[in-house]
């Protein structure tokens, strides 16, 4: 029974990782840059939920909507002010720049919170329901539902909408997109706005037991980084598979590790995503679903 329980918890974790991971992938595909600012954007977006839901006492869902609006604006702002001038600069420089952004945003957002975590004020609280002897938290169900809905919406956006198609084209061949009249600047801006919104949504579920957020939630969000690396950086499908892999592995470790190997100590499960990443990269250096780099030597 504890195995099934771990499985469900793992899937809920995977939902959070895939929300964060899709943000990484969208930015990577449009700019070929691995943005390290994603966890910080999560803290920042999450703060506004906390602020509007628990300090201003708005309805939780209204607070989420406002937070999403703020996330869109801040994503656009960051892209326009910090990333746009870097277009055409070496990818490495841009990636380092996102580390700087991550630090800056994390310090600012961290100051909003106190040292201790704050509740996001969600309606799920500690409520659970039982299926047989399984105990399932409402928040975990919400995480899975939200990420599935968001994923389907994103797939539809990329498949059917004009801008989604333009973004795919720009990811594939920027010059062709340009020559057909696509504004590549708009593509960059939209990908940052999307990533920022996805991070904000992830903030609601990053602590699936309590729904709280604090400066330390950053380390939890950072685990989405090994997830996208495992998935191959440029594949949304790969990110999903990797998120499930990592989420379930982490949950299983959390359940069994203290019984099996107590000498390692508690919370070893936090390291599991990185361990999985090591193993996958040893076997497939370009990730599970990544585009294989063909280079002549």
């Amino acid at each position: 029974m504890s195995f099934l329980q771990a499985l469900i918890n793992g899937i809920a974790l995977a939902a959070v990782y895939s929300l964060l991971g899709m943000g990484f992938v969208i930015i990577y595909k449009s700019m070929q840059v691995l943005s390290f600012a994603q966890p910080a954007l999560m803290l920042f977006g999450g703060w506004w939920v906390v602020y509007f839901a628990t300090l201003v006492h708005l309805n939780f869902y209204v607070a989420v909507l406002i937070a999403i609006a703020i996330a869109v604006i801040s994503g656009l702002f960051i892209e326009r002010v910090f990333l746009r001038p870097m277009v055409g600069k070496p990818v490495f420089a841009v990636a380092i720049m996102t580390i700087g952004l991550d630090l800056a945003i994390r310090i600012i957002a961290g100051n909003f919170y106190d040292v201790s975590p704050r509740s996001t004020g969600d309606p799920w609280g500690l409520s659970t329901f039982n299926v047989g002897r399984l105990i399932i938290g409402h928040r975990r169900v919400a995480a899975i539902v939200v990420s599935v809905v968001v994923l389907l919406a994103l797939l539809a956006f990329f498949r059917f909408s004009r801008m989604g198609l333009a973004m795919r084209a720009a990811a594939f061949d920027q010059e062709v997109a340009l020559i057909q009249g696509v504004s590549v600047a708009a593509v960059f801006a939209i990908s940052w706005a999307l990533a920022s919104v996805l991070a904000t949504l992830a903030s609601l579920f990053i602590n699936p037991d309590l729904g709280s957020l604090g400066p330390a939630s950053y380390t939890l969000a950072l685990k989405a980084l090994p997830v996208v690396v495992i998935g191959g950086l440029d594949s949304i499908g790969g990110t999903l598979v990797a998120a499930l892999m990592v989420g379930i592995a982490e949950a299983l470790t959390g359940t069994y590790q203290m019984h099996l190997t107590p000498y390692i100590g508690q919370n070893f499960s936090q390291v599991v995503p990185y361990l999985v990443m090591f193993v996958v990269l040893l076997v497939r250096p370009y990730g599970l679903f990544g585009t294989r780099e063909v280079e002549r030597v």
Partner: protein
Amino acid sequence: MLALKNVEVVYHDVILVLRGISLQVPDGTIVALLGANGAGKTTTLRAISGILDVQNGEITKGEITLDGQRIDHLSASKIVKLGVSQALEGRRVLAELTVEENLRLGAHTNRRKLNENMDRVYGLFPDLKQRPKFIAGYLSGGQQQMLAIGRALMSAPRYLLLDEPSLGLAPMLVQEIRDIIVEINRQGTGVLLVEQNAGMALTISSHGYILETGKMVMDKPSAELLKDEDVREFYLGLHSGGDEIRSFANVKQYRRKKRWLS
């Protein structure tokens, strides 16, 4: 009328590629732009389409006008909206996307008339109509070229810039592409055709320009160019002396070059 006047293009601030070229594409005509490798043909088209900055180039002098309005320094997407569209050299279809998606991308700036333009393109290229869901990368070379031209037509341009549409195609397919260009022109689109295949380009164009190392060296109606001795020798590979076997020893390029400028 699409016109270039004394356009000078510099790459990386130092490499002078176009040294003041002028050229005109009147409404509804086919104009050929010929020249050897590295002459600046592609750069000319990139300058018109406003995508020089991708490769760190810029227009340093001169102007490009569309009906008298300057369009240099406009963004690429504005230029497409004004009705100048280009099919890049080497086809450049989006290989992972379907035929239909490639065409839909072409309609990015002209979404309202998507269906109308799609019908027109499918009418021109029945091959594509049969397989809208086909992955573009698996099309044959000729079909990919047709897709590239079709994609450029999806914005319903007034002027179509074609960069070597016959590149790497079998003679039969070159004929087919040629007929399609004539048909596109007949439907009212002006064409600026950059070609290595001078024979093909000159037989369908009304006017021809010859570009050599960034300068226009000749500019005449195509019929006259076809008769020109130097053009016949350099671009059509024909010898004025008739059928005798040609020797490169007889080609005195330096003297010919002098004659271009005289």
